[in-house]
């Protein structure tokens, strides 16, 4: 089955970095801060590569939208096993939110004749959890979100979704958009030899206007604040004092 898979990966501030808010509250400090591939995107990519290894997918195309540095993340994805990469170049002034990225992905799906889109469930920097859903909507494709298990059954996918009440098993008719959850798989590590070998793989750079997509922003970030500092607890001497303090704050 000649299934072409498109994997979207995002370059985000590394999960282990302590994020600092800029003094003018316009954003977080990004200069000189370690960036890496979004952990959920890694899981999506791993799933795509596994499909290819099982000969269920014919080609894995990885795409990332952003500035020049996105190419590092695409190179890592190529090292992990993607066949070729597409970098959708974004200028300093473009701020891409989920809707804009979904439009870009939809355009690429049509351009590259893709049958399955694999994305991470959300990015750890904006936590939107919207791109997969919006992409499926724009393409009018079936979607499986928060997927923790995925099996190909002919022209359909059987997925297990992690939902609040437990696990939901759904059969989706291909073509589909899938967003990966934490327990879908254990992503492999891109070692230096893999990265060296992946330098031969093709990395295409596209401009947004080449795709004919309107990426004008629909919302504006007003301010970014740090979460409130945790207040120190109060130590009480005995139960009477505890009851008194609870009465003071109106809890009893």
């Amino acid at each position: 089955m000649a299934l072409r898979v498109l994997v979207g990966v995002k370059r985000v501030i590394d999960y282990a970095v302590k994020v600092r808010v800029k003094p003018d509250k316009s954003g977080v400090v990004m200069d000189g801060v370690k960036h890496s591939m979004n952990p959920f995107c890694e899981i999506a990519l791993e799933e795509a590569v596994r499909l290819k290894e099982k000969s269920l997918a014919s080609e894995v195309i990885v795409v990332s939208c952003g500035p020049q540095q996105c190419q590092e993340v695409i190179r890592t994805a190529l090292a992990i096993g993607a066949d070729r990469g597409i970098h959708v170049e974004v200028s300093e002034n473009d701020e891409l939110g989920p809707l804009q990225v979904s439009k870009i992905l939809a355009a690429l799906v049509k351009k590259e004749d893709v049958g399955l889109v694999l994305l991470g469930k959300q990015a750890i920097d904006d936590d939107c959890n919207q791109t997969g859903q919006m992409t499926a909507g724009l393409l009018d494709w079936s979607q499986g979100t928060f997927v923790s298990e995925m099996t190909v059954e002919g022209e359909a996918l059987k997925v297990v979704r992690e939902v609040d009440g437990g696990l939901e098993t759904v059969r989706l008719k291909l073509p589909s958009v899938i967003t990966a959850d934490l327990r879908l798989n254990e992503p492999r590590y891109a070692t230096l030899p893999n990265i060296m070998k992946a330098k031969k793989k093709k990395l295409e750079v596209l401009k947004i206007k080449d795709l004919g997509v309107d990426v004008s922003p629909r919302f504006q970030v007003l301010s970014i604040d740090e979460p409130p500092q945790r207040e120190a607890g109060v130590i009480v001497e005995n139960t009477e004092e505890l009851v008194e303090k609870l009465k003071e704050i109106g809890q009893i």
Partner: protein
Amino acid sequence: MANPLRSKVIQLYKNLIFMGRDYPAGEDLFKERLRQAFRKNMHVSDPNEIRKLIARGNYMARELQALYHVHKYRAMKRRYYNND
């Protein structure tokens, strides 16, 4: 016989330095420990000994990958899931 092994040792060292960027306790600490470990075995000349050490180095690389995975998994689980 030392020459092909020399390139293998250098390759191992470069791989580990590359992996050190993600070390949770800090890249500098990792690099220092790595250099100490390699320096300690600087004078080993027996090819079999060297092969054993390279194998141990590769084992350490796999252990590091497991460490990174667990560290990331736990961080994501703590942040995104309601752990009662």
